[in-house]
């Protein structure tokens, strides 16, 4: 795949912004917020295969260790 991707420096900015945004939300609203964010980002990606691939990447990362969540 040769689709353009976000430069790493910008990915770092996203990381920081997400961390502070999560901190400003009640913990109980985290997954609600992240699910909305996933849909909002997916809307901006014109290729559905890319979105499905991202979902699979996140699923694999989330199940690295089934019995323990951070």
């Amino acid at each position, binding site marked *: 795949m040769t689709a353009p*991707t976000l430069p*790493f420096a910008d990915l770092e900015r996203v*990381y920081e912004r997400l*961390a502070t945004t999560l901190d*400003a939300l009640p913990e109980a609203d985290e997954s609600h917020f992240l699910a909305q964010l996933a849909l909002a980002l997916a809307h901006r990606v014109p290729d559905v295969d890319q979105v499905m691939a991202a979902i699979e*990447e*996140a699923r*694999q990362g989330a199940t*690295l260790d089934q019995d*323990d969540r951070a």
Partner: protein
Amino acid sequence: MRPAGRSETDSLYFDYPHFPFVRPPELAGQAVRHRVAIVGAGPVGVTAALELARHGIASVVLDDKATVNDGSRAICISRHSLELLQQLGVDAPFTAKGLGWNQGRTYFRDREIYRFRMPHSDQERYAPMFNLQQQYIEQFLIDKAQASDLIEMRWQSAVTGVEQEADGVTLRVTTPEGEYALACDYLLAADGGRSRLRESLGLSLHGQAYEGRYVIADVRLKSDFPTERRAFFHSKALPDATILVHRQPDDIWRIDYQLGPDEDLEQAVEEASIREKVSLIIREVMHESDEWELEWWSLYKAYTLALDDYRHGRVLFIGDSAHLVPIFGVRGLNNGLADAANAGWKLAWVLKGQAPEALLDSYSPERRGATLDVFANAGKSTRFMTPPSRGYRRMRNAALALAFHNDYASGFANPRQVTPYTYAESPLTLADDPAFAAGPIPGAPLINRRLGDDDFLLDHLGTGFTLLHFSEDGRVAPALRESLDSLQARGHDLTLLRVARSPADAQTLVDVDGSLFAGYGAEPGSAYLARPDRHVTARWKRLDPTALEAALTSTLGGE
């Protein structure tokens, strides 16, 4: 701290030297005027003394202790620092005893998710990093200093007061045999993070403290695991603690582990707590089954704190007295050594009369600039190593989990190890020649290149400024030769280093495979002017001989 029943200097592997008190002439009532006094015989203070001695300047080093540091503390020495130690002629014991390394591994939930490698090639004399306990670092530097006629070490000498006058500094020194006043032209304050000199002068560090607290513990353990940096996040054994493991010489292993926000500090540093956690880490995280012994431990908190100005008249702060940085990325010692070299050569040039006192004005902007750059990086790595909040912890773990299968996320797991700072904004650095497409820019340090078996470019630097001159056959234009002769005749310590494509006379360095010309983006006629601390001050794609003197004057703080 050490286990019960063992004194601070009762080590499993290191024989602590005892440095006797020697009565100085001042105590016999003799008036002595020292050119430079250095307070603190740690790695930074003694490096400054060696740098001054390299340029022919005498100094006296005072320390209240009678031996070296109580523990291993700063253990990672960067390549840039090794190149500095080479200039001081003291690199051999460091490379003989130290353990070189160039890679590391990151683990998340007991899985290896990422390996990083630091830039390394056969063009380099030194590995990117060497691990060596601070006691050895200090001992090797002190051995070298004691062999110098220009360095006087005064042990068991506590500085209890400081007064600055227009033309010098006076210290009050307390010794086992009484007090005396020590007079000097300039003072280097290398008395560490809790600097008494800083306090006496009414100065304080500014910046921020981070949430994370770490125990750093040394154990003796036989293991075949190679010398690498290992970082463990969210291990099953200690899910809330980030853990770092480093190998040191003499079968000593450094284990750093994070303390939880609610942990009681006093209890956390009790021997029983240390043994319990360290044992868990050795067995369940490092998966080592051999017997181990506890050597030493200490408590560490991450800070980014610095003085607003590193120079106060005739006092220059070097090392931890000027700045405290987080350990992640190993910048504390390495930046302290760079401070020592920077302050050392500048002071030497002023005292030799080869530069106006204005040269010293560049010390603080250059080295404080390096500190602020460290802060920018260290903030990121500290928030990664020790997430300060739920949001940062969530993002950190998400990035690590993605990094297991996806390269795009592995950059987050990169430890951002120390890299030498480029003095691009310094008043001493001249504008770049836009004709260059490669090579170190003005402000950056010279890069090394292999010339042959056990022979590298940086082995050939002069003690002072070096003009690296590129040509076809080693010949130097008569006008340039004239300019060099004239500068040298006026006392400038300036060495001409000629690089040629084809062999000429014996003093020419031959670029056998073209990598030297290529690495420096040079063509015949190109030249680099480097300072005594190896940083490039100017470069020319085609050197006009009349430009050399102007560049040298400007880089020495002149008009």
